[in-house]
């Protein structure tokens, strides 16, 4: 079973604050433990929403809202990691996906690279950047409605095109939030609430994907991750499907 753990961000990081050296070291240790357990599949952080855009697709019309955002409907239904030259290019690809899936809200935010947080230097000659596109949950995704045959076919063709263009690094879809758990770590106390979640107002700060034996194991890792991160809200979401195509 695969699970995605998404931690929420806060005002400090939204304002462009850097993680402390201690936090970077502790998160590194945590991720190391996840690797050693044999379960870590992916991990990424997101830049503040000021560097992102929000796309709204309704009745065939697209609205582009530049960041920063206030958290609204932040429950994620699916995601893709893209490697493109600019955020505009990411917007174009996301718009083509929306043309297949229909009305949707999609946030696009740059992924955090080591050099963004003061670790090492950006390698010379890098002209692209990784962006994470997140489609928000709505009544259709929360009901677990499968795509129509026509949508599936169009999506497969589009994915093929994105892979060929070397744009698509990975993509995945999450199960409806009825199978999720939310862990809150505040005031030195951890509480776990089971889904479904009618709302999710906190912006996503980053995620890890783990392959584990049970949901309880995922919650246990979430507890440990929250210990490292400090005051944080963390969603544990079962992953329905995930594909990795490049780095």
């Amino acid at each position, binding site marked *: 079973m695969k699970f995605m753990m998404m931690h929420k961000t806060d005002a400090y990081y939204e304002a462009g604050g850097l993680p402390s050296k201690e936090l970077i070291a502790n998160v590194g240790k945590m991720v190391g433990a996840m*690797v*050693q*357990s*044999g379960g870590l599949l992916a991990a990424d952080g997101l830049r503040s929403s000021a560097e992102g855009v929000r796309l709204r697709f309704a009745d065939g019309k697209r609205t582009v809202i530049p960041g920063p955002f206030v958290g609204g409907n932040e429950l994620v239904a699916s995601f893709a990691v893209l490697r493109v030259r600019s955020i505009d290019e990411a917007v174009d690809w996301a718009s083509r996906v929306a043309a297949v899936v229909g009305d949707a809200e999609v946030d696009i935010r740059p992924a955090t690279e080591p050099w963004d947080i003061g670790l090492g230097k950006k390698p010379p000659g890098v002209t692209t950047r990784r962006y994470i596109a997140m489609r928000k949950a709505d009544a259709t995704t929360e009901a677990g409605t499968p795509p129509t045959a026509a949508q599936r076919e169009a999506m497969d063709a589009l994915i093929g095109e994105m892979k060929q263009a070397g744009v698509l690094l990975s993509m995945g879809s999450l199960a409806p939030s009825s199978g999720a758990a939310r862990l809150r770590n505040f005031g030195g106390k951890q509480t776990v609430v089971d889904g479904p979640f009618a709302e999710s107002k906190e912006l996503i700060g980053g995620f890890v994907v783990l392959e584990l034996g049970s949901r*309880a*194991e995922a*919650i*246990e890792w979430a507890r440990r991750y929250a*210990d490292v991160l400090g005051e944080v809200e963390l969603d544990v979401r079962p992953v329905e499907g995930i594909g*990795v195509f490049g780095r």
Partner: protein
Amino acid sequence: MTQSATHAAIEAVFRIEWPKLIAGLTRVVRDVGKAEELAQEALVAALEQWPDEGIPAKPGAWLMQTAKHRAIDAVRHAKLVRRKHEELGREIEAEGGDHIDDREAIDAALDDEIGDDLLSLMFISCHPVLAMEARVALTLRMLGGLTTTEIARAFLVPEATIAQRIVRAKRTLAEARVPFEVPRGEALAERLASVLEVVYLVFNEGYSATAGSDWLRPALCEDALKLARMLAELAPAEPEVHGLVALLEIQASRSAARTGPDGEPVLLLEQDRSRWDRLLIRRGLAALDRAERLGGALGPYALQAAIAACHARATTAGETDWARIVALYDALAALAPSPVVQLNRAVAVSMAFGPADGLAIVDALVEDGNLESYHLLSAVRGDLLAKLGRLREARAEFERAAALTHNERERQLLTGRAQACGTLAAPTRLP
């Protein structure tokens, strides 16, 4: 938290902590059997206390602490017994100091990096002094964290058999005074080979169930993958470790495509490649890349992974680079000669250069007689004969293969192929 949620949480903590607990404790008490007892006692304590008191903030540390205290008690008790025996009761004064030494030594031992301990635990669990099936059971119990019940279910044997295997294995290790350490120098290669063999065997037991009605027992594959990935993290400088990881990841990527809707096996070239798990393929190719980058000639696992990678890279069966696969089998046959490798090489040769060339290799194997009762020899020979239009002979080979396999699903598949030959070429009766 409800009672059942607490139990699920305790079980989850144990899944995560078990190998580290056993490894850390074995280093202290120098006896994997004793370590298991202590870890088990910590579990019992957790089951007693956590439902009432709540799960502690750092459950891993709690368990280690609890087990540690029991370890200290055990060491003290052993000392006390020894003292009584030696009638050294007069040194009561020094005893206080001793206790502190014990505690500090044990604290220091348990707070150290646990990585080497896990690796040492792998090496002793797979020690050549143990029979292969004992290595497998002990590794799954100590490192995989499986219960004896789970191991017994996975291998379709009575639980008492597994329990006994583990008890005997622990006794053998104690009697042989096998040191708890990572072997060095020349011993390392041989001991590492044994570890890799155990992990591969666990995977294969899950991947191609040798008995019973299931073609796949996925839990064992997952356990083996987990062990292999763990090993790669603990011994990152060993190319064959990455080779094994690559092989397992790529083979596992085909799991969903290996069975049809009714659970019947689907052979590699007929599989729906869109059902291959791209994530696992990606991980497998990355691991193979790591093995290759560490330098030197590829070992047997890395070579097999490179062959699997040829299949993984081909979008359709028709695009498979068979010439490269033949070259890789040549290298594998030179490095680790075996009739099974020859049989696989024969299949690759038939695909690259035609069924007649493949059949020549298979016929040589038949003459050697080493694979006489191996159902796949007959299955492959049947397939090549069918391709050459020699259907009556093909039918006989498929029937022979069906009679030889112990796997029910595979038998059905082979019988079906035999029948297909029969309907195509109804034997003409001599007047």
